[in-house]
């Protein structure tokens, strides 16, 4: 049995309505960018669907905002299917998002490699195929903290997802065909890696209590995006030491070409303030350069989170000219905006 929950200190009405209430507010805050289709439980581009364009759809458990709903808009996603907190959306939602995004050119599903999300997207894709919609799925699995042994569920999809959504979204916006959009998304998946560090737990609204308790002076290495414990619990260390460890984890696995241009994203987990993220980024930037890669594009902020957890994750994508140009293309979503 759970201990009696202390009252959660959150901006909340009925905890069971948290996802819906939050999406109502998201739509109220960004009416020119997105719409909330409450009947289907999905978020769609305000000016979509765009005739002839390949639809780009993603989705996943809520609680990781701005992922995915905050990335709906010109240059990125056409629709997103948010599940309950830390639970995959159901096939009905994903199917509705797929139909909302489809204008005949087909739809790309961007799926994080979590068992629930993979299975629900698979079921939705089977239903969409029955309806005659061409669907390609790209599964993102960039988390180097998980040992990728045969017979296991494999690695989670983490911050790489944000980059896949931006880059595939730009390719689709440029009018590329479904197979080309899927191909560039898979190129990103192949060249992106992430590693996360948790400094606290977080409290899902319905559970009403923190998922785990960290003793004073200890932190979690190799966390995901559902507030769960990571691969290892270790003593707290300085930002400098953590940065060295994070860069080592990511680059050892990615093995980029010497001198490679990279995109470095540092995403907070939701409860870590901008000042700490930038402090850590300074150390990461130095470590990356010392390791022989050059962060030519950078993104520091909250992009893929776990509610109000403290912590951050480093994502590194090895770039080439095409990826840089797609990254730089205009985007206008509630959480990522430039060039328009």
């Amino acid at each position, binding site marked *: 049995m759970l201990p009696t929950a202390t009252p959660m200190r959150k901006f909340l009405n009925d905890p069971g309505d948290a996802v819906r209430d939050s999406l109502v507010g998201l739509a109220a805050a960004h009416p020119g960018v997105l719409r909330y289709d409450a009947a289907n439980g999905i978020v769609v581009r305000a000016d979509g669907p765009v005739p002839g364009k390949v639809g780009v759809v993603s989705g996943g458990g809520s609680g990781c905002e701005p992922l995915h709903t905050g990335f709906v808009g010109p240059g990125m996603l056409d629709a997103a299917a948010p599940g309950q907190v830390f639970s995959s959306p159901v096939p009905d939602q994903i199917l509705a998002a797929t139909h909302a995004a489809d204008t005949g050119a087909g739809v790309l599903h961007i799926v994080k490699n979590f068992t629930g999300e993979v299975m629900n997207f698979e079921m939705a894709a089977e239903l969409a195929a029955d309806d005659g919609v061409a669907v390609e799925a790209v599964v993102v699995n960039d988390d180097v903290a998980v040992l990728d042994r045969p017979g296991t569920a494999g690695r989670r999809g983490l911050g790489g997802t944000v980059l896949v959504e931006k880059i595939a979204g730009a390719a689709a916006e440029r009018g590329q065909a479904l197979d080309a959009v899927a191909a560039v998304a898979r190129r990103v998946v192949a060249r992106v890696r992430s590693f996360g560090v948790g400094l606290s737990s977080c409290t899902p609204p319905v559970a009403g209590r923190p998922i785990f308790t960290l003793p004073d002076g200890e932190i979690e290495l190799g966390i995901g995006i559902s507030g769960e*414990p990571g691969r290892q619990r270790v003593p707290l260390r300085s930002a400098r030491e953590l940065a060295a460890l994070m860069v080592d984890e990511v680059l050892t696995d990615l093995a980029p070409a010497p001198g490679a241009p990279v995109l470095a994203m540092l995403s907070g987990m939701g409860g870590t303030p901008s000042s700490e993220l930038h402090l850590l980024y300074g150390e990461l930037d130095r470590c990356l350069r010392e390791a022989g890669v050059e962060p030519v594009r950078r993104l520091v902020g909250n992009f893929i989170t776990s509610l109000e957890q403290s912590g951050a994750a480093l994502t590194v994508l090895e770039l080439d000219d095409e990826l840089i140009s797609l990254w730089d293309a205009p985007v206008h979503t509630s959480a990522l905006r430039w060039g328009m």
Partner: protein
Amino acid sequence: MTDTIDSPALRAWLHEFARRVAENSDHLTALDSEIGDADHGSNMDRGMAAAAAAIDSDPGAEPGQLLKLVGRTLVSTVGGAAGPLYGTLFLRMAAAAGDAGPLDAAGFAKALHAGLDGVMVRGRAEVGDKTMVDALAPAVDALEGELAAGAALDVALAAATTAAAAGRDATADRVARKGRASYLGERSIGHQDPGSASATLLVEAAAATLGTAADGQA
């Protein structure tokens, strides 16, 4: 009551499962908070409450339709890993039950076996991966084994319950290879798998509601 499983018997089973899930919701969530994301109880409770309401609103449904309704409702309301998996379990049971009306004990066991197969295909999981399969597979084995040896349904279901619980308990010693717990690697050892606990409730609910002995127990 006899060993014939008609629509009212199935309804009793499903309601009892919903009741046990609701009763154990916090416990399931607590298990999931150890090695998952603290939502298995609320996921299953949301889904089974919806499923119970769905079958109540369709009083005429025959066994196959009933199981299909439960499967579809779970797929549509649960999300996460459990939604497609339990949804598939019931959808495959429905397919196995077909339109033939009431099931006998062997038919019920065959349907449950089909459901288990569906779960294993959908989840790409084997016995020993530390998932709900670790409770369901031994339960199906025990049920089929006892029935084949001539036992009555109530006896067979009691054996299935024991097997499910043993399978559930054994998950604690294992390293998870599927689902969220697999991300923890060795750290998943020492914690019971939440899905194996909810699956054990499903078998317990069957033992409490189906077969002759259920009359006295339920």
